[in-house]
């Protein structure tokens, strides 16, 4: 086990998660809270929502912000570890520049591809079955990642056609959609939310990629020095 590599991924993920919390507080979080005022104004507008009386939920204010920070840190570390796993598996070189390229690829895989079928969703907006959407999301992310890796590492026309087929397949199949798009949330809020989440996610992925590139290349040099000593 390469402990320095794992530590580098953890540090990059934690810093990127903290950055995401600051970036989201500009537009994304205020828009979520604004949408909730419309969601709560209409009783049972969101039947799939699981916030019943018994379930714990953070109180609005600092408690909710704290738990969002905590979840962002976990998500930052999760994405950082997943990128690190792929980089190690393919034995790829690492530097700040390489990290930024991996971050851009992460944005395409985890944000652009699933968003193409399932646009960013505000509380109260109509959406298809949750489990079906989660399955489609995971399938789309996996297929897009596979397709992009083929593009990056295989130059023959047959492989590239196969890569394109993987990227396109989930969109030909189609994402699960709600029976009706009727929603108490105004359309302009939804449009603002799309731009806000895409811009914020792009910044998050570039920051994560850059940090991961920086810390991983340092960790790799340290592992190299340790391997030569021992």
């Amino acid at each position, binding site marked *: 086990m390469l402990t320095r590599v794992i530590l580098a991924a953890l540090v990059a993920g934690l810093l990127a998660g903290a950055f995401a919390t600051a970036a989201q507080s500009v537009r994304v979080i205020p828009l979520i809270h604004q949408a909730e005022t419309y969601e709560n104004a209409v009783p049972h507008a969101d039947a799939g929502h699981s916030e019943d009386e018994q379930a714990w939920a953070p109180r609005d204010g600092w408690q909710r912000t704290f738990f969002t920070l905590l979840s962002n840190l976990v998500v930052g570390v999760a994405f950082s*570890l997943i990128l690190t796993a792929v980089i190690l598996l393919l034995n790829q070189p690492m*530097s700040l520049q390489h990290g930024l390229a991996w971050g851009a690829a992460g944005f395409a895989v985890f944000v652009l591809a699933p968003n193409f079928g399932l646009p*960013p969703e505000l509380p109260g907006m109509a959406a298809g079955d949750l489990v079906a959407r989660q399955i489609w999301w995971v399938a789309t992310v996996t297929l897009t990642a596979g397709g992009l890796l083929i593009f990056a590492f295989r130059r023959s026309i047959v492989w590239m056609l196969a890569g394109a087929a993987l990227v396109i397949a989930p969109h030909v199949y189609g994402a699960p959609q709600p029976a009706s798009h009727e929603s108490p949330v105004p359309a302009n809020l939804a449009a603002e939310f799309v731009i806000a989440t895409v811009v914020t*996610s792009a910044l998050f992925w570039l920051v994560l990629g850059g940090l991961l590139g920086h810390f991983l290349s340092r960790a790799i*040099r340290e592992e190299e020095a340790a391997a030569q000593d021992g």
Partner: protein
Amino acid sequence: MLATQALSATLPVSASARLTTALFAGVFGVALLYFAAFAHSDALHNGTHDTRHAIVAPCH
């Protein structure tokens, strides 16, 4: 060649150490993503609610 080495680094260590670390990072990363963005537990959903919306994972 020197310039490339200064800018980037690949792991000189054994393939088995590299692959073990990749497996650990992959499993740990996917597990964390599952709990933060996909688990159906009400408490987990409510605690991670705003993050799920922000990273555009399907939330509810």
